[in-house]
């Protein structure tokens, strides 16, 4: 982000002028008498960063899913769109395409599916300082996938009653739903570029059980070999600043009236003024990092 050089000079100037501001008003005035000035002294100053609610979009791509597909029988190709709200709340939509092509060596049963899935949810930045470049997330997702799968294997033989038939069933249609609980981190690697990972604990609401049994693999969820499922993503993210307004600094001043005196001394407030100056410097640095 381009550094705002003007703030280096304008901020101290603004502070100095406010500390020395004398506001004159007219009150308690007798007829024919010259108006008496009332002196107001700045009691305290505070500079608060006023961050806009909407901080932009982030586009992400998962690189763990394709690697998983390369080294195993299943994997996903996934992207996500995240909305940044005050660097704390991140509503997110994740869409992907899950693929599973597996044949068990012992039973010779094959399972194949290729289908899209969708997840939606919210991440929350758990770090105390929300405005630093790194983030630690906790979040949750609801996922859904409507998919068809094929199963096939050796022919079924009835040893008691006799007879045999091929075991091959294609295009079995079903829908699965699940929820995920997420922990993850994200670090800034370049301006507008982030890298991070998530681990996901998944539990199925419905595994889409059909007359043929429970699907072995649900796109976006994973395998159904256990009651619950663990997953992971490794994301590369790019910040989009569409529609984002620039953050501003808000100056708050508390004043109190004093007796009019030419030699009004604001020296008692000096230590506090120094504190305000430090805070202003901190905020200025924060603005720079943005």
């Amino acid at each position: 982000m381009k550094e705002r050089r003007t703030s280096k000079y304008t901020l101290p100037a603004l502070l100095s002028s406010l500390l020395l501001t004398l506001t004159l008003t007219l009150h308690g005035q007798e007829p024919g008498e010259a108006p008496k000035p009332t002196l107001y002294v700045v009691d305290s100053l505070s500079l608060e960063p006023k961050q806009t609610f909407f901080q932009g979009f982030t586009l992400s791509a998962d690189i763990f899913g394709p690697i998983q597909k390369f080294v195993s029988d299943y994997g996903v190709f996934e992207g996500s769109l995240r909305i940044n709200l005050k660097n704390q709340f991140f509503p997110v939509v994740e869409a992907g395409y899950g693929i599973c092509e597996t044949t068990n060596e012992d039973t010779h049963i094959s399972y194949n599916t290729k289908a899209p899935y969708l997840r939606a949810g919210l991440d929350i930045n758990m770090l105390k300082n929300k405005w630093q470049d790194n983030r630690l997330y906790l979040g949750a997702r609801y996922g859904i996938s409507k998919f068809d799968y094929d199963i096939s294997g050796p022919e079924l033989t009835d040893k008691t009653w006799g007879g045999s038939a091929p075991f091959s069933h294609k295009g079995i249609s079903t829908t699965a739903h699940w929820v995920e609980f997420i922990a993850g981190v994200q670090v800034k690697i370049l301006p507008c570029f982030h890298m991070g990972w998530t681990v996901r604990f998944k539990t199925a609401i419905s595994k889409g059980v059909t007359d043929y049994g429970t699907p072995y693999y649900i796109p976006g969820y994973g395998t159904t070999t256990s009651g619950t499922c663990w997953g992971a993503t490794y994301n590369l993210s790019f910040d989009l600043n569409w529609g984002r307004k620039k953050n501003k600094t808000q100056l708050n001043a508390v004043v109190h009236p004093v007796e009019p005196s030419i030699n009004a001394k604001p020296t008692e407030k000096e230590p506090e003024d120094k504190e305000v100056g430090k805070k202003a410097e901190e905020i200025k640095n924060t603005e720079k990092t943005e």
Partner: protein
Amino acid sequence: MIKQNKLIPTLLVVTSVVMLSAACSSNNCPLDNSVSCNYYFYDSQDHAISIGDTLSVSILLPGHDTLYTYRLAGYTTIESRTRIDSLIEQGYKELVSVTRHDSTIINQVSGVAYLQLPMAYFNTADTLVFHYASITNNDTLYIEHDNMPHVGLPECGSYMFHNIKSVKSTDYAIERIEISNPNVNYEGKENIKIHFAGTLE
């Protein structure tokens, strides 16, 4: 909220929990993976009983058998599925009949409270014959069902599950028969109640 200086320890804890949890996962193949229809025995008052008689069960299979019966006064009657010419030469009279092809699947058991019997994979109606040692007549059971190929997990193999549609039987020793659970799978639940005539008391 988590301070930045606690970030790394927090991540280590989360990662460790994930690793440990992942290590605990295992497959869910059923230990008893035979699919059978479970027939439980009751008296007429719905008390669970063990059958006191000696019981054999045969099933009627598709196709027919030719049965040759040889009789001679003063001698034991002989039945055979193949023709025996030597018996005719000895003076036996031959009687030829055609019967349903059958197979005995339970041979002379007693004191049992239930039976686990297979269902046909590719027929939608099974006929079972209960043979009793103490009475001459047999009871015939008719079970109508659907068949559903089933794969739990690829590593667990394939099965044929069934859904029982209706049951009926003759009433020589059996008073009534009813479905208690129509889903026939490897869970081992009671599927059919057979109520024999008489009470436990």
